[in-house]
């Protein structure tokens, strides 16, 4: 919760639960990131060659699931960005009722496990309307991640020095004009890296939607396994594919962050 008087923040938001983000110092050929990423990649190539059955079959069986995982992830992050931005603005709003609603939303959502939320929203929705499973999944992920992204946007907005808002309103801008033309453009650069991390977290958490009969990567792996009883092998491939994806994106986030630091502003 925001305290009465907040100390001036650094314009860098630290996250602790992100994927493995290669730091600047890790330039060597044997950084943890390189070993993990290329190790996973090598296994994904080596296993199907060495043991075509079942690994080759599994690799041919799951691509549909990878696409589905991306579909859920991209749709969810897109909607969650909208919800998160509104929530973040709501959290700093001077209008008490809006502020209260945004804060309660964040507190409630963050206090419930995502898996429970997914089940809950699925069955709650089912009482009112019949929506496709994938849509229920996206709605659940959006509701959950909207709250987390809202906190990132709030922190990002509050990290902008208050002199910026003062200068803008002293010139005659309204608070909302100042927010959209002065504060938010500066917030974007601050929140991009943590948003990238949330994207990776969402990619991983999307595996939870496999419980809603959405044929994502995990579910495809399990479908294969339940037919063939190659549980260990199927989940090995599933895990390796997730690992390659998250490590790839974490590298991307790190590069983005580095580029922005170099640009300085």
């Amino acid at each position, binding site marked *: 919760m925001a305290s009465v008087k907040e100390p001036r923040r650094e314009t860098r938001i630290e996250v602790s639960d992100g994927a493995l983000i290669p730091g600047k110092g890790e330039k060597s050929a044997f950084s943890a990131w390189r070993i993990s990423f290329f190790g996973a990649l090598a296994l994904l190539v080596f296993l199907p060659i060495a043991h075509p059955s079942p690994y080759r079959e599994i690799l041919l069986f799951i691509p549909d699931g990878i696409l589905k995982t991306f579909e859920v992830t991209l749709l969810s992050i897109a909607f969650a960005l909208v919800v998160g931005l509104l929530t973040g603005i709501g959290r700093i709003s001077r209008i008490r009722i809006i502020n209260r609603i945004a804060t309660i939303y964040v507190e409630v959502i963050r206090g419930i496990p995502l898996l429970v939320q997914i089940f809950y929203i699925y069955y709650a929705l089912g009482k009112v309307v019949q929506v496709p499973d994938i849509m229920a999944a996206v709605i659940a992920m959006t509701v959950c991640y909207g709250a987390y992204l809202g906190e990132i946007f709030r922190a990002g907005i509050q990290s902008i020095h208050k*002199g910026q808002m003062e*200068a803008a*309103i002293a*010139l005659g801008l309204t608070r909302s004009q100042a927010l959209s033309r002065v504060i938010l453009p500066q917030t974007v650069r601050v929140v991009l890296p943590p948003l990238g991390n949330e994207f990776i977290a969402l990619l991983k958490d999307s595996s939870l939607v496999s419980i809603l009969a959405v044929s994502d990567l995990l579910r495809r792996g399990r479908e294969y396994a339940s037919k063939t009883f190659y549980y260990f092998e199927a989940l090995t491939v599933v895990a390796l594919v997730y690992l390659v994806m998250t490590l790839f994106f974490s590298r991307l986030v790190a590069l983005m962050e580095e580029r922005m630091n170099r640009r300085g502003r």
Partner: protein
Amino acid sequence: MADRVRIIDASKNFGKVVALKNATLSVKPGEVVLVIGPSGSGKSTMLRCINRLENLTSGQIWIDEDQVTDRASDIRKIREEVGMVFQSFNLFPHLTALENITLAPRIVKKTPEKEAVALGKSLLARVGLSEKERSYPEQLSGGQQQRVAIARALAMSPKVMLFDEPTSALDPEMIKEVLDVMVELARDGMTMLVVSHEMGFARAAAHTVVFMDNGEIIERGSPEAVFASPKEERTQRFLKHIL
């Protein structure tokens, strides 16, 4: 002539701290008022109440016919006519020097892009920074940033300009370039309230000097009178420290 700014029995408390106590002050059109006093004496608070960056606890402030302190008056409209220059410049770091200046005219006054740019360029020329229009604030020195900030405030054609310690954050060699711009502005007839301890500016441009201490206006008068023969003991003591 009617007063441009009238501060009437103005008080401001921050919790239990009294920042401004029964301050009364009028400023005529074209008058340049220099506000001096020890830190924490309420100088900045008084300035910030004039465009309602802070709300008075009691008292009134008027700008021409508009009562700033009236909740019903359109404060945004009033702020258009009151330019403010901050100690820490507060330029918008994501915009170029020119864009910093054109932002408010374009958004608030709906000035067409072309006109706003022409206005911005002429203001940059006025503060001597024509060649910096594409520079971002971080690429400018402190003195240059503050000059852009002055141009940015002037772009709204204000009736009054407030300067809140405009040179305190500057290295000594950059102070003069900012003061030169301010002196010129004063000569052009701008009404100005300036919180500063720059004696050079006081001599060159100030019509009135106001000394504040503990949230109160202790003494006011012409620069000659206040600096050469201050009446109040507290003023004498303070001037001994800074002169």
